[in-house]
Each structure stands twice: as C-alpha cells, then as structure tokens.
C-alpha cells in the first residue's frame, strides 16, 4: 500500500500541473478589457493614423533591465501594440546586461531605452511611452519635423538652460517628442527661412525695433509665433502683441479662494479653453505661476480670439501689489474673474495664414513648473495649434489633451475633507467598536 504522503504529493503535483497549463493557455490567448479613460492600452487614433501613413519598414529595438519586471512588461506590451497595428513595424527586445554588443552598436547605455530605425535614420527613445515612440517614428519616417526657434538674448527662457526656474530644456524635450526641432536663436532680427515656429519665451529686456518688425513681417508672410509675456514685460513686447490685436493688462491674476492644495494662491488656474479653436479638449487644468490678463482690441489684418480663461475664483490685481503685500480685492479697481490669459490670432495672407498665440505668463514652461498640472499640455496644444495647419485632428495619446487635461486640482479645504473623511473617520469608527468589544469581554 502506497504511503499516503507520497500519494498526496503526487496529487498536489498533478493539480499544480493542470493549473499551470490553464495559466499557460491563458497566456497564449490574452484578452484585455481596457478601462482607462484614455484607453492607454489601445493605441491612440493619432498614433494609428501616423502608423497608417507608414510605407517603409521600421525596426524598434528595446533594451530592458532584467530587474524591473513590470516595467519591462509595460514596454513590451506597448511595442506589441505597434507591431499588431502595422506589419511594417518589427520589434526586438534585449536584456541590456546580456547584450552589450548590440547596445553599443546602437549607442544605448541606459536601461529601458528603445531605438527606432527606418533605413539609415535612427532615433533614440529614452522613456518608452506611446507619445515618445510615435514621436520617434515620426522623426525617422514620418512628416518632417517643425523647426522651432526659441529667441534668446533678452532674458528669455533658454531651451539649452537646465536651471530649474529659468531653463526651458524640459519644454524643448516635450516639444521634440511632438516633432518640433527646438533650437535657440540669438536675436529675432534675422529669422531663418526654415523657421516653422518661433517662440518668444518671456523676454525681460526690450527687443530692438528691427526685431519686432521682423517678427511682425514673418507672421504677415504666414509665419507662426508664440509669445509668452509675464506681467511687467517690456514695452516692446507689449507693442508687438498690440500689433496683433492683443492688449496686455500688466496686472497679476490672483486666485486665493480657489487656492490649490500645495500652492501659494498667487497662481492662476486656467480652467476654460476655447473649444472652437481646440476641439477634443474636455477640460483644461493649467497653472500659470504669475500671469497677467489680456484684452482683445481691433488691429488691422488680425483676427483675434480668446484662447484660455482662468477660473471664476480668480481676480486681477491691477497694481500688482502681491507678493509684497497680501492683496485684497478692491471693488471698482480690481477686476473679477474669469480672466483671459491667452489669445489666438490669425493673420490671413496670400502665403497661408500667419498664426500667433499670446499667453500672459512664461514661467509655466520652466523646468519647475512644466510638469505641474496641465502646463505641459498647454504648451503642446498651443504649439500644435499655431504650427500645424494640418495637425492630425485625431485624439492624442495620453499626456496629451484628452488624458492629462483631466488632471486634478484640489484646494486646501478639499484636502482636509479628504483627510478626515477617508483617513480618520472610517478607521476611527472601527477602532472604537473594537475598544468597546474588548471592554465588554473583560467585564464579562
């Protein structure tokens, strides 16, 4: 008679084997229910349209770290979606530690990096997300990128600068992922002919009149311009945008009642975007650290529209008293919100419409603020709006309008409600009952 322990062991092994087969079977025919609102596990229609336009073979090589299982699975799953959507896309994955030769050949030294190649052209993707990969595909095989110049020399945010409060290098990288080739341009007097987009990111010193004229002329000839102007911006910049029908109020938009959890109340929350201009934008949540409002005026040859407005709880401190003193609203002098903080101008011309966007703040593109709330998407949206006439009208992948614009804002009061309601109340109730029961037991 067989020993029962051996029999038991055999049974357990058999059951484990059966269950293992079931799991393996499931792995062969996976089915997914994607419940993310951005449908992160399906490629966005933007990416699919880009992929649909591909005619040549694309090879994507992924280098993963053997230590980080879930990340690797994310990346391989994502690349598998590309492969499934477009047979021209071929994907290979290597463990970076075990394949140093291949990594060296492709110039890769960091974990979780991918390289996208089409023919001779090669593009490295440092963070494997849908937008980065699609951006890389665009770069190697898609539509030519938009050459973007950030004007420097007047105290603007420099795209080569890595300083937290002053640098726009993060912004440059974000734009690059969308197919904007960002370079710095010393002075705006001589704008290169290949400039697809010019950005004036918060100048603090006056531009020369020649530069202003050059910019106006470029727009009139069908050029694309973004002007980011902080409160206190120099006169020449005010004149520049005035030529496009936008008058900067030189005030400070304050938002104390709607003060965000973790902020100082002096930042302006952008809550409305003009849906006539930007379709597919459910909500906007950008936070402009120090913004001025603006007003549309008549200007020859320019059709201006408001692009973005702040929340109802904001008001404009006309004399810009903060942060030196704690401002209080003065009826009759200060203005109530919602306040316009961005405008979009169209300058029709024979060579195609020139387009300008004016935003009442430039700090939101700095490294410190770019990733706060929806700032990044505000930048990208305006860049797309201005620079691409035939912008793909499809919904973009996550981190683009549609996904990120639903980011959360929470006032300090709200946060307290969450704390007491979610952290303290439920657990305290149960612990009190426990205490009561324990006492009853002891006395019983």
């Amino acid at each position, binding site marked *: 008679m067989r020993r029962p322990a051996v029999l038991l062991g055999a049974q357990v092994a058999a059951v484990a084997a059966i269950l293992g087969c079931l799991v393996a079977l499931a792995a062969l025919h996976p089915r997914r229910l994607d419940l993310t609102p951005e449908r992160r596990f399906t490629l966005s229609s933007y990416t699919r349209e880009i992929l649909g336009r591909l005619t040549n073979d694309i090879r994507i090589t992924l280098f993963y770290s053997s*230590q980080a299982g879930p990340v690797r699975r994310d990346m391989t799953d994502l690349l598998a979606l590309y492969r499934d959507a477009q047979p021209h896309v071929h994907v290979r994955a290597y463990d970076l530690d075990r394949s140093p030769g291949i990594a060296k050949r492709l110039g890769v030294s960091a974990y979780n990096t991918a390289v996208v190649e089409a023919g001779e052209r090669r593009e490295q993707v440092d963070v494997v997300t849908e937008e980065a990969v699609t951006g890389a595909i665009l770069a190697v095989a898609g539509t030519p990128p938009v050459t973007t110049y950030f004007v420097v020399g007047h105290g603007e945010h420099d795209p080569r600068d890595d300083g937290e409060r002053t640098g726009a290098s993060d912004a440059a990288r974000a734009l690059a992922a969308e197919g904007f080739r960002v370079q710095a341009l010393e002075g705006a007097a001589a704008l290169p002919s290949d400039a697809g987009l010019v950005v004036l990111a918060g100048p603090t010193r006056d531009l020369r009149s020649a530069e202003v004229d050059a910019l106006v002329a470029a727009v009139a000839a069908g050029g694309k311009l973004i002007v980011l102007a902080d409160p206190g911006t120099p006169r020449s910049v005010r004149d520049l945008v005035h030529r496009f029908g936008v008058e900067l109020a030189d005030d400070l938009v304050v938002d104390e009642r709607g003060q965000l959890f973790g902020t100082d109340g002096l930042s302006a929350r952008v809550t409305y975007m003009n849906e006539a201009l930007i379709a597919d934008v459910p909500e906007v949540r950008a936070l402009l650290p120090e913004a001025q409002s603006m007003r549309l005026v008549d200007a020859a040859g320019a059709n201006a529209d408001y692009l973005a407005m702040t929340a109802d709880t904001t008001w404009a401190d006309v004399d810009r008293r903060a942060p030196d003193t704690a401002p209080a609203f003065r009826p009759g002098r200060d203005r109530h919100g919602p306040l316009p903080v961005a405008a979009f101008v169209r300058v029709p011309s024979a060579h195609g419409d020139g387009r300008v966007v004016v935003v009442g703040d430039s700090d939101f593109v700095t490294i410190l603020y770019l990733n706060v709330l929806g700032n990044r998407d505000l930048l990208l949206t305006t860049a797309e709006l201005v620079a691409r006439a035939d912008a793909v009208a499809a919904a973009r992948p*996550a981190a683009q309008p549609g996904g990120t614009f639903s*980011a959360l804002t929470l006032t300090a009061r709200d946060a307290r409600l969450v704390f007491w309601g*979610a952290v303290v109340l439920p657990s305290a109730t149960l612990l009190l009952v426990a205490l009561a029961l324990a006492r009853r037991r002891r006395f019983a």
Partner: protein
Amino acid sequence: MTKAVLVCRRELVAMCGGPLAWVLGGVFLLLTGYFFYSDLALFVLVGGANQTRGLWRFVFLDYRLVALLVLPLVTMRLFAEERKLGTLELLWTYPVRDGELLTGKFLAALVLYGVFLAATVVGPCILYYLHPFAVTPLLAGYAGMALLGVAFIACGTAASTITENQIVAALLTYAVLVFSWFATWNEAAIGERLAPALLQLSLFDHFYGFAQGVIDSRDVVYLLAFAAFFLFLALRSLGARTWRGL
C-alpha cells in the same frame, strides 16, 4: 441554507463578536486611507500626468501591500482555532463535507475582506464629490483587489488548516506570499531561461495590470488558479486526518 452558509455565518458572527476583526478593519482602513491621501497629495502637486498612471496606479499598488499585511491575520484563526478548541473534531462528525466546511470558512474571510474593501471607496467618493473624474480605472483596480484578496485568503486558509497555532498559520501565509513577491526580484540570479517562466508565476506581477486600469485575462486566470491551488491544498490537508490522525 446550505451548510457552507451556516458555517460562514457562524464564523462571521464569531469574528465580529471579538475585537480582533474590528482592529484589523480599523488598521486596514487607516492604512489604505493614508495611502490614498498621500498618493493624492503627491499627484495634485506633481501631477499633470494622467490620473490613472499618476494616481490610481499608486493607490492600488499601495492597497495591495495593506491587503498583504492584514489578510493573513484574518485567515489565521479559520481552522487553527477550531483545531485547538477541539470543535473541528466535532464538525467532522456532522453530516457535512470537508468541502462545505472549507467553502464556509473561506467565504467568511472573503466577506470580511469585502466589507473592508468596500469601505475604502469612501476616499474616492469624497474625491468625486469634490472633483468628478473618470471612474472606470477604479473598477479595474477594485476588481484586481478582489481577486488578489481571493488569492491571499485561499493561501491563508490553507495555512490555517495545517497547524493549530494561529501565529504559525499567519507566519506561514506571510512566508508564501512574500516569497511569491520576491521570487522575481532577482531575475539576474535566476537565469535567462527560467526567468520568463518564473515571471509568469509571480503573484504580484499579475496585479499590475489591474492597478493600471486594465483587466487582462492572463491576470484573472492566474489569480484564480493560485487560489484554486491553495484551496485544493487546504482540502487535502483537512483530509489528512485519515492517515495522520487528529
């Protein structure tokens, strides 16, 4: 009412009559609430990234840890206490199958966990009231938590059938679950061929999808298989009295 329901009900009444279940519930809600609040704070400040990736993923990954901490303490008494008291022997003289006993006890732990989990909805509800958001990723997250709970409880129940000491049962459960978690951390040590196979077996990897708002059939099947395996073990363990004695 089937016998399993009778056993389940008695167990639940016994659990709720003592302070332990309430303390565990309080701890569970305190920790999950705290994680929810701090993940939310982080997201509001640094956010901008999409909500599922930036908030709910972290919330559910943290909830998973709380479940790991609390559930073995819920399951430890299921069979161990009965064995120690001698009531298990008596149960075996009733016209009831081992499977029914197992089901009843398992269900009781599951119901208790279900109540704890349901109570964590308070946080997202308050958030929704303040600022409506897309709810669907939460469905995936909670589905994952439910399935993970089933897996943990199955493991804990099996451990409880092996010993009459509740602490040993809890420790055994922790050992198995933590091992399932760490087993795939050091892939480099495991070897390239074995690694993908082991990855498939990692309990915690199979929760990741749910935390990101996706219900993947591979994950569902794995978690259910995990639970089924341990429930089978529990059944066999109960049946071992035939050749091992009480």
